[in-house]
């Protein structure tokens, strides 16, 4: 518990420092101007979103092999954090796209893949809500997560063929060194925030599972009448 909060506090501090440097110290980009500064949160979110998807995917496979409910709790946490990050990515991307490309939305492969996976994960989270049996819920959502994650590269490449206009992917080698520091600091900030979120959410899922498992067997109305 302490560790999770420690990660979150560390993440927030790093994000504050990184964003301060990104907003006030680093120079404005030559062509895009001030708008480019959203990159300091957008790119770290994108990297960590991929990590969260990988985490959910890995936990699903681990659950199917081990049948250990701990992996189900981790998978639920990964799914939710990945959904949150995907939503943030869509919002940040739109905010950046409007002044740069003049439109809120563009059918770029990365943007579209994130949106498709956002909806796929929302569907799996909805499925989890509707299945009462914990064992079944765990298996089904693991299966659905594997199927949805495998779809990600296919969506990416098919949309890439279909249409493309996004700018080259950013990594420390493609951006000038003046932009390195805030980008790196923020990447770790978002990473620690994500780890903290996943840890807290896993804990919550474990509590819920324990409560569900401990629930007394359901007694139907006429059985209850017989007992009385």
């Amino acid at each position, binding site marked *: 518990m302490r560790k999770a909060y420690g990660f979150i506090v560390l993440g927030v501090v790093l994000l504050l420092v990184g964003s301060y440097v990104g907003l006030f110290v680093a120079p404005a980009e030559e062509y895009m101007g001030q708008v480019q500064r959203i990159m300091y949160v957008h790119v770290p979110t994108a990297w960590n979103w991929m990590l969260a998807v990988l985490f959910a995917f890995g936990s699903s496979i681990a659950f199917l092999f081990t049948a250990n409910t701990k992996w189900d709790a981790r998978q639920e946490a990964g799914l939710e954090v990945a959904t949150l990050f995907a939503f943030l990515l869509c919002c940040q991307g739109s905010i950046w796209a409007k002044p740069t490309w003049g439109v809120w939305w563009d059918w770029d492969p990365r943007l579209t893949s994130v949106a498709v996976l956002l909806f*796929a994960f929302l569907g*799996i989270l909805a*499925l989890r809500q*509707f299945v009462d049996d914990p064992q079944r819920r765990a*298996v089904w959502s693991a299966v659905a997560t594997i*199927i949805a994650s*495998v*779809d990600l590269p*296919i969506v990416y490449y098919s*949309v890439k063929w279909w249409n493309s206009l996004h700018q080259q992917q950013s990594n420390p080698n493609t951006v000038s060194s003046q932009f390195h520091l805030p980008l790196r600091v923020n990447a770790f900030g978002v990473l620690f925030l994500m780890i903290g979120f996943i840890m807290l959410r896993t804990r919550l899922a474990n509590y819920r599972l324990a409560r569900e498992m401990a629930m007394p067997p359901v007694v139907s109305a006429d059985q209850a009448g017989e007992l009385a």
Partner: protein
Amino acid sequence: MMLAAALRKEILLQWRTRSQMMAVFVFGAASLLLFSFAVGPNAEMLRTFSAGFLWLGLLLSSTLTLSESFHSEMENRALEGLLLLPSDPRALYYGKAIANWLQLTILGCALVPVMVVLYDAGTTQLLKLLLIILLGTAGLSAPGTLYAAMTAQVRAKQTLLPLLLFPLIVPALLASVKATSLVILGDPMQQSRSWIALLGAFDLIYWSLCGLLYGRVVEE
């Protein structure tokens, strides 16, 4: 052997409930009619969008046939009975997936004349169109059958199935629409081959992956 028996059972069931198939066809045709009102009476535009409308109509209809496909297994816990048979549950899956695939292919072929009449979107490359419909509906049916096996057993199945299926089949939909559209509107750059290849790859991945995972979905 088991696969043949499972397939025979599915086809027999579908044949005996063919009135439902007819109703789904009417649903699909009606949605094609409705799409044209979304565009307006612009013949050129309708023709341009015809492939997209055909596949959207087929996709919407498919959620009806797929969610119904586990109906009989849910009655009297028949699915448990089937799983007690000394056989691989994968045979049950592939039997149902192939039956759903056939059903969707027939539906797709039946919707083509409706599209031709409504949108003036004729083509002479009928064999190629059939191939695209076969591959596209295979892409719908493999994950659709797996998800139907899950959602048939829960509340709110009518909502959950499209929620899970629609994001997943984006690549298959994209490739089918693109390939069909090239067949209808002409394909000077020979691009349709790569879209058909993409569809084939999607089918290959999901027909094997879903078969692998089905055993886990229905286990008790």
